[in-house]
Structures are given as structure tokens and as C-alpha cells.
């Protein structure tokens, strides 16, 4: 018997005000997905119309963070499993895509999709194993997975071993040269970001998502109610791997280089978790806001050399503050203050 059985209230501080008239539980509205697509359009068009490369780079990083955070939220926010080593999807996807483009001369989009599919499949297979672990053990196992893959890649000669893979400029020729390639990759990444958010929304409003949320609240009770917990978890883990892998492929293609330490950077992996907690886990907009805010914060902090050393400290302090005082994050706070927002701001 676990200690956490009835004794304390297992509330997650997502309390409503209590005395508001109960709003009718709404079926999913068309408004929200439309808003997401609109956001994506803004992301894509604002830098393009302004021909502002600096802004594009900033938005590109934001799009990557949002993709990572949003997909990670499927495991952390919905299913309640902390995937510390989530960055392994990003890095592995990056390697597969870059390899397909450089060695096998695949077109970029096909290589990206293949990277996503492969990493997703691997996640399904290996996930089934490590998802038998609960709580902290799963969390640590994911770090182990990331480390193991990093070690493997660092010793894998066809992928450049410890030095990694460099892309020469010819790799960008099929896309019309480096300039237009950068814009194209940017648009594709924005597309990946939009699809990630839509996926998150689709899951949350689906029967599958309900099962995941039940697992996240109380896995044993969910099983008693009939949720096939092993399958659900494995599918969620696999689904949360696809878009990060594609994003990794696009990102490293654009960066022109991929090497083991940068691809499997545990710090970024952890920052994705901080982004989710900052914005509000278990929601669709939470990771979006959290990633955006964190990226701004990070950009601001990195300008000062002394503070950049303390990046980890600040991220940690932020995470701690959120967990202790505002576990619902920014979105949780908004929901609490304005309960009506719950249906609009999912």
C-alpha cells in the first residue's frame, strides 16, 4: 500500500474557486485549434515580412523549445511520468536525419519524417521496457537511456564518432542554397511546432488522453477502471518522441553540425521540464507559454557573463519556486483567478 492513499488530499492545486456555478463540461471547441494555427501563421510570417533574420533565429529557438516542452508534457503533464532524458529523441532524430541527408542523399522532408518514425518506433519498443518502472526509477532510467545513446553515438564511426557530422554547403543546394534553405527549415519547424500543439490538444480531448490523465492521477485506480496502462504509457511515450525527433532533424540540419554533447544535452532536457512547470503542466498552452517565457529569460540572462554561469542555479531555483508555490504554473494561476478561462485556455 502506498503512503499516499486517502490520508492527504491529493490535490494538485488546480482548485477552482469552489463556489462558482459549475460550468457545463464543454466538448472541444473549434476555437482553440484555430488559435494555434493562427499563432503558427504569425510565427512564420512576422519575421518573413520583415525579412528580420535576428527575429527569425529567436523565434526558431522558441519554436524548438515549444516543440520539446509540448511533447514532453504528454508524458509529464498527462501521464505523470517524468522523462528527464527526453532530449534523446531530439538528438537521435537529429543524427538520423542528418545522416540520411549527407550519406544517403535523401531529401530533407523525407529524412525528417523518417527520423521521426524511427525514433518513435524505438521509443515504443524500449519504452515498453522502462515504463514498467515507476516514479523516480523511470525518471532516472530515462537519463540512463540518454547517456547510453550518447555514449553509443560517440563511439559510432559511421556517424562521426566523437566529432560528429558536418554538413557541407552542397547539402543546402537541393533547397535553393543556404539562404532559402534557412527560411524553408524555419517554416518547417514552425509547422512542427503547430502540429505538436495540435497533437497535445487532440490527445487531451480524446478518450486516449482521458486514460492518460487517469494514469497520471492514480495508475492503479486507472487499471482497475479498465485502462490498459502498459499500452497507454508506451503509446504516449512513442507519440511524445515523434515531433522532437523531426525537430531535431531540422534543427541540426540548419545548424550545419551535429555532435554527441550538443545533441544529447542534458541541461536542455531539464530546461524543457522547467518550461513546462513554469507555464503549467497538463495543459496545452502551459508548455507554450512556459517555453516562450523561459527562452526570453534565458536570452536575457546569457547576456551577462557572470549570470550565465549560474544558468543551472537560476533554472533550479525557478523550478523549486514553481513546485513549492505555484505548481499549476502560469496557466494554473490564470485558471484559478478566472475560472471561465478553463475552457478557452486549455
Amino acid at each position, binding site marked *: 500500500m*502506498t*503512503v*499516499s492513499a486517502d*490520508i*492527504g*488530499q*491529493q490535490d*494538485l492545486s488546480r482548485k477552482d474557486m469552489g463556489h462558482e456555478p459549475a460550468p457545463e463540461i464543454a466538448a472541444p471547441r473549434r476555437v482553440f485549434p484555430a488559435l494555434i494555427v493562427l499563432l503558427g501563421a504569425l510565427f512564420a510570417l512576422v519575421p518573413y515580412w520583415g525579412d528580420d533574420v535576428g527575429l527569425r533565429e529567436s523565434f526558431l529557438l522558441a519554436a524548438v523549445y515549444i516543440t520539446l516542452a509540448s511533447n514532453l508534457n504528454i508524458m*509529464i503533464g498527462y501521464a*505523470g511520468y*517524468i522523462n*528527464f532524458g527526453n532530449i534523446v529523441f531530439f538528438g537521435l532524430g537529429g543524427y538520423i536525419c542528418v545522416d540520411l541527408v549527407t550519406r544517403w542523399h535523401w531529401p530533407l522532408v523525407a529524412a525528417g519524417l523518417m527520423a521521426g518514425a524511427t525514433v518513435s518506433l524505438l521509443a515504443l519498443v524500449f519504452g515498453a*521496457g*522502462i515504463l*514498467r*518502472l515507476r*516514479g*523516480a*526509477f523511470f*525518471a*532516472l*532510467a530515462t*537519463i*540512463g537511456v540518454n*547517456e*547510453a545513446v550518447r*555514449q553509443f553515438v560517440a563511439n559510432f564511426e559511421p556517424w562521426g564518432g566523437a566529432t560528429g557530422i558536418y554538413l557541407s554547403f552542397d547539402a543546402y543546394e537541393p533547397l535553393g542554397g543556404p539562404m532559402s534553405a534557412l527560411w524553408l527549415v524555419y517554416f518547417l519547424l514552425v509547422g512542427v511546432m503547430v502540429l505538436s500543439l495540435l497533437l497535445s490538444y487532440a490527445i487531451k480531448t480524446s478518450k486516449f488522453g482521458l486514460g492518460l490523465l487517469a494514469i497520471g492521477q492514480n495508475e492503479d485506480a486507472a487499471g482497475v477502471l479498465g485502462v490498459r496502462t502498459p499500452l497507454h504509457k508506451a503509446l504516449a511515450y512513442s507519440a511524445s518522441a515523434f515531433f522532437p525527433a523531426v525537430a531535431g532533424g531540422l534543427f541540426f540540419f540548419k545548424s550545419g553540425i551535429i555532435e554527441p554533447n550538443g545533441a544529447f544535452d542534458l541541461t536542455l532536457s*531539464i530546461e524543457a*521540464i522547467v518550461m513546462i*512547470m513554469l507555464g503549467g503542466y497538463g495543459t496545452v498552452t502551459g508548455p507554450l507559454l512556459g517555453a516562450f517565457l523561459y527562452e526570453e529569460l534565458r536570452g536575457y540572462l546569457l547576456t551577462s557573463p557572470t549570470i550565465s*554561469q*549560474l*544558468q*543551472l*542555479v*537560476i*533554472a*533550479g*531555483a525557478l*523550478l*523549486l519556486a514553481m*513546485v*513549492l508555490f505555484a*505548481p499549476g504554473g502560469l496557466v494554473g494561476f490564470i485558471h484559478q483567478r478566472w475560472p471561465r478561462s478553463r475552457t478557452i485556455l486549455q
Partner: protein
Amino acid sequence: MIGVVASVIDGVLVGAVYGLAAMGLTLIWGVMRVINLTHGAMIVLGMFIVYCLSKTAGLSPYEGMPIVVVVAFAVGVVIYWIAVDRVIGRPILMSLLATFACNMILIGIGTALWTTSPYNIPVSLPGISWQGYTFTGTHMMAAAFAGLIAGLLYLFLNYARYGKAIRAVASNREAAELSGIPTKQVLAVTFGLGVALACAAGALIATLFPFTVLSGSNYQLKSFVVTVLGGLGNPAGALLGGIALGLIEGLATPFMPVSWTPIIEFALFVIVLVAFPRGIFALSRA
């Protein structure tokens, strides 16, 4: 063949220290169902405390051990009150993130203070030679200390009044509270104790191998492996598990490169957890 035996014996000695570290982790889990993800940082803390002591006061790690324990205990209690107390009744997600956040903060501060360069504490003790192999004095001393501290812990938990209070809280917190035991205080003390064990282990490890601010994660993984080998919440099992791990390392190191060790341990971790959810040495419990 002799080489393998020597390696195994050496592994067992070092394993005792792993066991000590794991005891801290498993004690905290057993009493308050919190997985302390600052464990690695605490091991590193122990390493750097003795390093500073040896640099500033010329104390050897063995002499500095009492200071390590006291400082570590204080740090543990502080961490408990700041981060852990508020998350105890809440979902495991929260306590994992809270302790992990503390870990980030501490490692970040450590990196700022000491960078990620390797450090070393030169300790020389006479060793024992056998069949052409030397068992270093430091390894034997470390194992002896580990055994000593483990023994003290055992006596404390089983015979001291406060130790029994800790076990009462571990067994049934509500009942303990009703019996008049100040459970919050006990939890804070237990956390401090668990941290002290980790720091002590770190101090001993500092005598064995060079270390950096980032070494903690490696030893934390070992502690986790040991904890699952010995069964969660079972300090005696942790010591046995540590020795077992040391044994496995001793068997493996003559045959494969060092960089593979974390992967082997990680694989072991996953396999043991999946196959033996209660731990291999889990003594039968109702």
C-alpha cells in the same frame, strides 16, 4: 585468475562505501517515501568538505569525518525544511521535481565555486601486499569506516530511543503522531541523517578516486542500483547491495573499458527493477 580475485576483493572494499551512500538514500525513502534527488550533490558536498578541510586545516578526511557529518546533517535539515516538507503529502511528481531542483541549484553553485575540473586529495596509508597485488590502505580504511558508520546506524535505529521513533514514523506515521512522536521533527532529522550518510560516503570516495563537481551523478546512479538490489527502505540490504555492486564491478573491470561501467550499471538497474521489484535482498516482509 589471481588478478580477478584481487580485483573482486578490491571491489568489495569499495562496494562497502557504495553501500554507505545508498543507505542514506534508502533511509529517506523508507521513512518518508521521498526519493532524494539531491543525493548526488550531497556526495559531492562530502568530497569538497574534506577537500577544503585538507587544504585549509590540513586535516585528513578521516579526521575531518565528524565535521562532515555535522555539516551535512545541518544542510540536510535545511534542505528538508525548504524543499521537502511542503511536498510530502503530494504526488510523487512534486517531490521528485523539488529535490531535483535543489540538486540543480547546488550543482550550479558548486560549478561556480569549483568549476568542473578534477580534484584530488592525496592520502597515503600503508597497504597490504598479497601475491604481487597491493590492497591499498585507503581502500581498506574506507571500507572500515563504512562498516563502522553502518554499524553505528544500526545500533542507533534499533536501540536508541530516537532511532526507534524514526522506525515508528517509517512504519505508520499517523500512529506515531498519535503516540506523541513529533513526526515533522523526526522527518527532518531523518533527512539530515540520510544526507549525512551520503556526505560521509562522498568523503570516503574522495580518498579513493579523483572527483569533480559533476561526479555526483555517477555515484547517485550507483546508489540507485544498490538501493534496488537491496530493496527500498532497507538499510541492511543497502550495505549488502553495495558490496554486491562492488563485487560485480570488480569482476567486470579487468575485462572491459571503464567508460562502459555506467552503461552496465544502468542496464543492471533496469533489469533488476523489472525482474525483482522488491529487491534481491529484500527480507521477507508481510
